[in-house]
């Protein structure tokens, strides 16, 4: 096949996959409201699996991201003699950008891969076929609760990440570098308003939608072999990470 032919073929394959993903996500979105109302227990279980089980990694990362942010921020602000602004800088950076983005990247790596491999293995071991034979729609019973659970868990995790990050920034900025605690917190409270918090929430909700949909889609459509599930899991991390960064730019451009 010529280079042009291969280019056309891969473009076609990308379009087909994008169409399939869109239809699958719409199907998830269609069954989600009824699921939340009728089977809230299934959703709560998945919020626990995707959210609570990711807490340690989110808190650890949040702490160190906040600490390094304060360290770098202090070094930079010191050059302009405005170290008092450290609280504003770290607060805004965490709430608007780093909280949602890094949480989503960690979510894709921890919860996203777990979702893909779980659903992929269920498919490989005929569990999804068995459900279909029991007249139970696997998309409704398996995929939708995990999708909704991920969407709910992401903003909660991002909020915890940002909160722990601020604590880490305070630890380095105030305790280690000697920035005045009153200045640190009052500057942060003065410069962060509800719009900034909203921006973080909107971003993490969109990232939650994207990451959960990608993870569930890849698991459900994984080739039912060990290699197929492995490849699907890799695709989940790669696609989610790229999607997060692209969506982040688009959302920032709109919301700023």
């Amino acid at each position, binding site marked *: 096949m010529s280079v042009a032919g291969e280019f056309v073929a891969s473009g076609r394959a990308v379009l087909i996959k994008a169409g399939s993903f869109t239809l699958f996500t719409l199907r998830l979105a269609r069954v989600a409201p009824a699921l939340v109302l009728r089977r809230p227990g299934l959703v709560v279980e998945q919020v626990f699996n995707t959210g609570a089980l990711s807490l340690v990694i989110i808190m650890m990362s949040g702490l160190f991201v906040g600490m390094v942010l304060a360290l770098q921020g202090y070094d930079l602000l010191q050059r302009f003699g405005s170290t008092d602004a450290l609280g504003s800088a770290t607060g805004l950076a965490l709430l608007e950008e780093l909280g949602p983005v890094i949480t989503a990247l960690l979510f894709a790596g921890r919860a996203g891969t777990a979702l893909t491999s779980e659903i992929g293995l*269920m498919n490989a*071991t*005929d*569990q999804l*076929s*068995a*459900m*279909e*034979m*029991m*007249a*139970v*729609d696997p998309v409704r*019973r398996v995929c939708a609760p995990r999708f909704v659970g991920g969407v709910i868990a992401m903003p909660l995790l991002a909020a915890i990440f940002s909160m722990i990050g601020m604590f880490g920034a305070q630890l380095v900025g105030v305790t280690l570098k000697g920035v005045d605690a009153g200045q640190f917190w009052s500057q942060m409270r003065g410069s962060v308003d509800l719009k900034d918090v909203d921006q973080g929430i909107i971003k993490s909700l969109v990232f939650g939608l994207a990451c959960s949909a990608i993870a569930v889609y890849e698991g459900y459509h994984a080739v039912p072999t060990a290699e197929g599930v492995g490849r699907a899991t890799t695709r989940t991390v790669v696609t989610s990470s790229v999607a997060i960064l692209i969506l982040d730019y688009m959302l920032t451009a709109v919301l700023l």
Partner: protein
Amino acid sequence: MTDPSTAAPAAGPAPFVRLEGVGYEVAGRTIFDKLDITIARGRVTAVMGPSGTGKTTLLRLITGQIRPSRGRITVDGEDLALLDTDGLYRLRRGMGMLFQNGALLTDLDVYENVAFPLREHARLPEPLVARIVLMKLNTVGLRGAARLRPAELSGGMARRVALARAIVMDPKLLIYDEPFAGLDPIALGVVLRLIRDTNDALGLTSVVVSHDVQEISLLADYAYLLSGGGVVAAGTPAELARDASPVVHQFMGGLPDGPVAFDYPASDYAEQLLGAEVPA
């Protein structure tokens, strides 16, 4: 032997499943050319054939998991081609299927696996669910294993749990995919007895896909032998055992030489070895 083109347990009760002129192709390969099969109501019907003849594909066609390329399939009087997804799910509520590996849900224990269809389709009070589940588990002799996880079960136990789950909604049709594969003689005997007893006690229709000739001879009321994309023989196991046609004789006797090739087609053996030819 009955002529496969007209094969049907005609003297028996009305058919539960009927395949008429069914063809199925996938990725340019013909799995079935023209398949005519009748599954009689209330009987245990076996579908046998060498590996790769499409026995599991046949089950997927009967259950509507895949659509035939041509021909007509009716189950309990309903044409599968005319059913949408909801219609298929409604029909499947009257079916139970036992997968080769059991296909138990690995995040649920034995009790919850058996209770799963009840919880999904019926809003029953918990004491009633418990009674039904325990009765079905008792039927397969695993009432005491209710709280074990699927990973803690042997292959035979997993299949018995799957059988309990398959009958928990009291289906009219029960389908078994290779129920004897990999079982030790005791488990095999138990599963064999369970299939027969379940069919007779509950008044079901059973379809058993297998290539275990001896077990099928003991179990089935009627059997079809598939090969080369169609039915090559049909009749009672005793009739098939007496059949002298080469394909049936080779399969029923477990003979390596005959019309069904054991070796996959390949280039000349000596030439390939002497030329150290790497398979393309």
